[in-house]
């Protein structure tokens, strides 16, 4: 049977509409291409 308290911990407060801007700024936008670019740069620097 479910542990109610544990299940309750899965639920978190939602962001309000006024917090959209903060959410966008705090969003991690780096993608794999960025990682690859960084890796290639590091490789070039080491060479």
């Amino acid at each position: 049977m479910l542990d109610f308290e544990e299940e309750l911990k899965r639920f978190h407060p939602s962001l309000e509409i006024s917090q959209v801007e903060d959410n966008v700024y705090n969003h991690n936008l780096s993608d794999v291409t960025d990682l690859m670019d960084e890796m290639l740069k590091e490789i070039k620097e080491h060479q």
Partner: protein
Amino acid sequence: MNCYNCGAELSNSDYCERCGADVSLYRRLIKLSNAYYNEGLEKARVRDLSGAAVALRQSVKANKKNTDARNLLGLVYFEMGEMVDALSQWIISKNFQSEKNLADEYIKSVQNSPARLDAINTTIKKYNQSLLYCEQGSFDLAVIQLKKILSTNPNLLKGHQLLALLYMKEDNFVRARAELQAVLNIDRTNTLALRYLKELDEAEGKQSKKQQPKREEEQVSKDAIVYTSGNETIIQPIGVKDNSWLHSIINIIIGIGIGMAVMWFLILPAQKQMESSELNDAVAEYSDQVEAKTAALNSLQAEMDTLKAESEAAIQSASEANEKLSSYEELLKAYRSYAEEDSPGALEKLEAINKEILPEDAQILYDAVFREVGAAAVTELYQTGYAAYQSNNFETSIADLGKCYELDNTQHNALYFLARSYHKSGDIENAKIYYQKVIDEAPGTRMSTDATNLLRSISN
């Protein structure tokens, strides 16, 4: 496709013709991102929103500039009731592609409905409040709040999930199942909802079945039809005649009966008691007022009696004062008559004086005048009285001799001739009285003997 390094248009070569960067891996990432996007799109089309969201997140992770994937991800979030995440994805998408971007339309459609946006924001706040209620243990309040939220924003999946969890805690499996079914109607592979459903099946002792999405108003057994209406699950037995109207009438009649009974046994006695109490209070108040007025009346009566007594005393005092004054005046007049040697006049005035009310000094004066005047007056009265007797003027003789005897009761001669005057005047009764007085007061005298004989003669 543009070079990730310099932005130049790429050809089929694995290297950028402008900057010479190796773009083979980049090409693969773009393809991978597009593949994830396609997968996400397929899943979204069959309402596998959870799966679509996973694929689309992978797509934008591979290529953050994949605006189609990001827009679709925002749309999926929007459908799941996650407005903030949806707007965030659309804004980021617009940042990467400012023109000819679907995100523009999505953002405008949201901005053009401020009332709807405000309602959604309110549901978010209430959802957070519900979570707070849960943390505080106020589960009933949380359930009420969540029901309100879902009536405004029925796509808020986590609201349905939390409500289902609360229903499961209360062992209200039917409602919990309805909430989970609502989740699955929006997101057919929602992992949490499926897990809760499995728990529900186990809790209800049923065999786990693969849950298939159900349409509303689906027949689940031969005996009953179960369907959901909003947040409620309605189980309607088949073959049972709907006679709810009869139940309603019976319930109304029972309600009226209970109401009348309550009125008869509780309200009316209470009202009567209240009226009786008010009446008693009024009577007590009136009694108090009557007692107060009676006491005031008695007090006034006593005061009036006192005043009356004082008034009488004052009148008596005034009368005495007048009398005293009059006596003084008479005393002075008597003295004046005495000084003028008018003894009868002085005596007459002295007789008008009430000696008792005179002060001691005045009484001494009164006695002195009376002594001097009295003797002369007695002699004079006897002489005039006797002269009148001899001249048969009995009226004068009775008056003068009577006064003489009155002034000096040792004047036995005056008493004798007074009796004779009465006798001769025909007043036998007074004659008898005064003859007897002569006999009593002057015994052994000639007058006594004569009086005895005369009394005997008139008595016979």
